[in-house]
């Protein structure tokens, strides 16, 4: 337990978390600091490309095993199922209308790749081993939750049927979402080119990686802070609390599954982190098309303003400690 607290404190004082806090503080103080949008998008692309490529190269080195298939299946199941639970909890505990609850629920079933990356770095700093192919699990968990979210909204709200005719193209758009394409594409390129490819790319995607991540987290802090400031009032206490206990619930479920599957600590910690994380890139974009009546001020702020910092600061070390105990 003491150890957990020490690790937690160390995590809070890592450059990653501190840059996030700097951004948050600057935004709350109404500083005009901002990362130009095209550059922020480039940073995000870089992170996807790098994490995908390194994952693939890792697979080329260490090989695949049956565990991956099991993990992907578990991940997809979580992504489909968690939104149902999240929706039920939101309807019970918060005053959110159905369409907002469905949209929020979809976010918690999907994943945040930056949270996943932060967990990778955390494990590395703790010298805990994990497999590169986990990045494939992350990719597989992005989309299913969106389907559940839309289904939840439709089941409860006849009005939203009007958008149904567009769904064919919507599902294609979700699967061909830019960040998924880069993540998966870079994964395969890393796999194909292996060690040699990694050697070529390393000075670009390995060495400066943590620095780029810190800069990106500065931007995330700014955005989270502006979201929190802008949505003052829109977000009630119950919904804010949901943004902190929901990841713990998802984490507990994933932890149980990880123990049942007999995963090693590192892989378990990453699977748990994925389950506990909430999307703020792919799902909001899909929700604007599929459920335009749902309010972005609610779901974007909960996912980015509440759950992301919670996971970054407290969640990741906690999930790791739990995974080490259980496995």
């Amino acid at each position: 337990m003491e150890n957990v607290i020490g690790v937690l404190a160390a995590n809070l004082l890592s450059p990653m978390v501190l840059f996030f806090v700097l951004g948050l503080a600057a935004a709350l103080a109404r500083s005009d600091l901002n990362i130009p949008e095209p550059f922020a998008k480039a940073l995000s692309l870089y992170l996807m490309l790098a994490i995908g490529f390194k994952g693939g190269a890792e697979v080329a080195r260490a090989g695949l095993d049956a565990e991956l298939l099991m993990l992907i299946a578990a991940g997809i199941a979580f992504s489909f199922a968690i939104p149902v639970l999240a929706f039920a909890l939101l309807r019970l505990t918060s005053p959110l209308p159905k369409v907002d609850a469905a949209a929020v629920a979809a976010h918690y079933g999907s994943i945040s790749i930056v949270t996943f990356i932060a967990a990778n770095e955390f494990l590395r700093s703790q010298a805990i081993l994990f497999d590169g192919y986990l990045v494939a699990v992350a990719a597989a968990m992005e989309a299913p939750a969106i389907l559940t979210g839309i289904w939840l909204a439709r089941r409860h709200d006849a009005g939203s049927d009007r958008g149904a005719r567009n769904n064919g193209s919507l599902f294609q758009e979700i699967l061909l979402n830019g960040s998924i394409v880069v993540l998966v594409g870079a994964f395969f390129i890393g796999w194909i080119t292996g060690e040699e490819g990694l050697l070529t790319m390393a000075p670009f995607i390995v060495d400066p990686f943590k620095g780029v991540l810190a800069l990106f987290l500065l931007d995330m802090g700014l955005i989270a802070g502006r979201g929190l400031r802008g949505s003052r009032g829109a977000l009630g206490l119950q919904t804010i609390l949901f943004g902190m206990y929901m990841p713990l619930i998802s984490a507990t479920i994933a932890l149980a599954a990880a123990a049942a599957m007999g995963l090693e600590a590192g892989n378990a910690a990453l699977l748990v982190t994925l389950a506990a994380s909430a999307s703020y890139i792919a799902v909001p974009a899909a929700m604007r098309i599929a459920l335009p009546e749902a309010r972005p001020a609610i779901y974007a702020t909960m996912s980015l303003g509440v759950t992301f910092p919670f996971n970054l600061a407290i969640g990741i070390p906690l999930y790791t400690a739990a995974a080490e105990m259980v496995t």
Partner: protein
Amino acid sequence: MELHPKKRIEIIIERVVARRLTDVLDRTGVLGYTVFPAQGGRGQDGVWDRNGLVSAAGHMVAIVCIIDASRLDETLGQIYEVVERQIGIVAVSDVEVIRSEHF
């Protein structure tokens, strides 16, 4: 210089929805349109700023489309079907153009 009266439609809409709208315009007889990026704004759903969006969601664009008055009603009808459930505004004004082959 001879000027020809036309209608200028300006649609302010979310970037994620813009492709659906331009797909519709492509199918109708509209001969051209231009998309302009917005930087920020405010509406009933609150304030937004391009540099403060991690997702494409929330980012608005303006689609400007100059057409002949004879096509206005039909075009607006088709635009309305897309924007009906979305955030966004549609404004029409009178303009005069110097070449009429584009519209």
